[in-house]
């Protein structure tokens, strides 16, 4: 059973989004996603300053198995990336919801964040996908 945190929003492509106090949205991948990917050995995050749109592939996670795209759940401007992942990509396996965050986005609007799945919806979505 994958861990799903109650205070986050989710995308069906298995990313989570956390609203920080300054209005910036922090993005990472869910426990379900990190488990499916297997052991992470390399992470490529977007450049700070890059403008992205919702559902755009903007990060890559390489596991022992394969390379997988990460899609931003929301559009906006990348304002920070999680530099420690460069030396410790395994943080995504060990702590995907906190230390394993990928990048932070200053959103264009609140609407995209609000329209993401809440924890209960995401749990039901996982169940409908068979796990």
């Amino acid at each position: 059973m994958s861990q799903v945190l109650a205070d986050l929003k989710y995308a069906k492509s298995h990313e989570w989004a956390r609203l920080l106090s300054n209005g910036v949205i922090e993005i990472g991948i869910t426990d379900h996603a990190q488990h499916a990917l297997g052991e992470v050995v390399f992470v490529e995050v977007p450049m700070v300053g890059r403008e992205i749109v919702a559902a755009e592939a903007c990060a890559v996670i390489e596991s022992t198995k394969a390379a997988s795209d990460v899609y931003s759940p929301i559009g906006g401007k990348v304002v920070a990336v999680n530099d420690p992942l460069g030396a410790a990509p395994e943080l995504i396996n060990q702590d995907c919801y906190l230390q394993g965050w990928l990048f932070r986005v200053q959103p264009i609007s609140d609407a995209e964040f609000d329209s993401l799945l809440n924890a209960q919806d995401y749990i039901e979505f996982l169940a409908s996908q068979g796990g």
Partner: protein
Amino acid sequence: MARCTPLHDLHAALGARMVDFGGWDMPVHYGSQIEEHHRVRNDAGVFDVSHMCVLDLRGAGVRPFLSRLISNDVAKLRLSGKALYSCMLNEAGGVLDDLIIYFMTEQWFRVVVNAGTRDKDIAWMRAQAAVWHSDIEIIERSDLAMLAVQGPKARQIASDLLPSHLRAAVLLLEPFFGCEYLSTQGSTWFIARTGYTGEEGFELILPVGEVVALWEALNAAGVASCGLGARDTLRLEAGMNLYGNDMDESHNPLESGLAWTVSFDDSGRDFVGRKALEAFRTTLVPRKLIGLILEDRGVLRAHQRVVAGLAKDALCEGEVTSGTFSPTLARSIAFARVPQATGETVQVEIRGNLLNARVVKLPFVRNGRILITL
């Protein structure tokens, strides 16, 4: 429907993540592929390789048959138990499979071929035997399972689990030799000092009904269950080719880093593919298989484009044939097929970016030691 080895239920009970490999449902890891890799480099691990196909070739005509069938020369096999690694080629020199041959007696050679090619290989061998009127019988040993116990402590731990009268003898096996032993169960176990990891170890071929107990005894003695994921990273670090990635029917051994397995010494030996290889050899072999270590950050993967940087040469590009993240080196490594004139550095295209990689002499790692400059 995927085929299952006799250990399939045990893999499930051990929490293995399963994957299709050559039509077989096989464990890719039991939790951590990277941890399993390190266990083999530093300690001992066991792999289920029962998907591989054990063939016994028997009859008075076995030696002459193999002398024509494979590109290495079975004339090198004079001592009983000696193993020989070789390719089996088609007439065009393409690699049908790579295999290991153990010389048991003049009437009996044991051959181990890959899982994904077993049906093709057996059909090819039977067809050749018919054409050459060879006095041989090809017996598929589906009654046998196969384990690889690998790592610096593998031989000692494995031998401790063997019947007491066998222990001293198996520890005296020379590298690349195998021998049959009578087990306490009264059955016959074939044990060889061979493997696919670059570490010391044994490969054991034993009756299907006895393999689960052996696996459990190895686990209890501290040998880690290891999946095909670690097997792949270990063999890549050890500079060992994988059939279907690094050589196949479209590529001959000379352009696959396997010239050392082709024996041209006996000019009278007319092995399948010889004419094609001789013709190929008259000019400079246009491509070669090399080792790469990625200098930039990323992960090399099979089929990535390699730019060898020889702009004036028509052949200025190559391709990664196998690539991975190396747990021992904590860097990405690969094999690539590139133009013969390729220098000491290349670039590899990863997601549209050209990243720098350095050409290195294989292997990357052997017997727990890193052999390249990082």
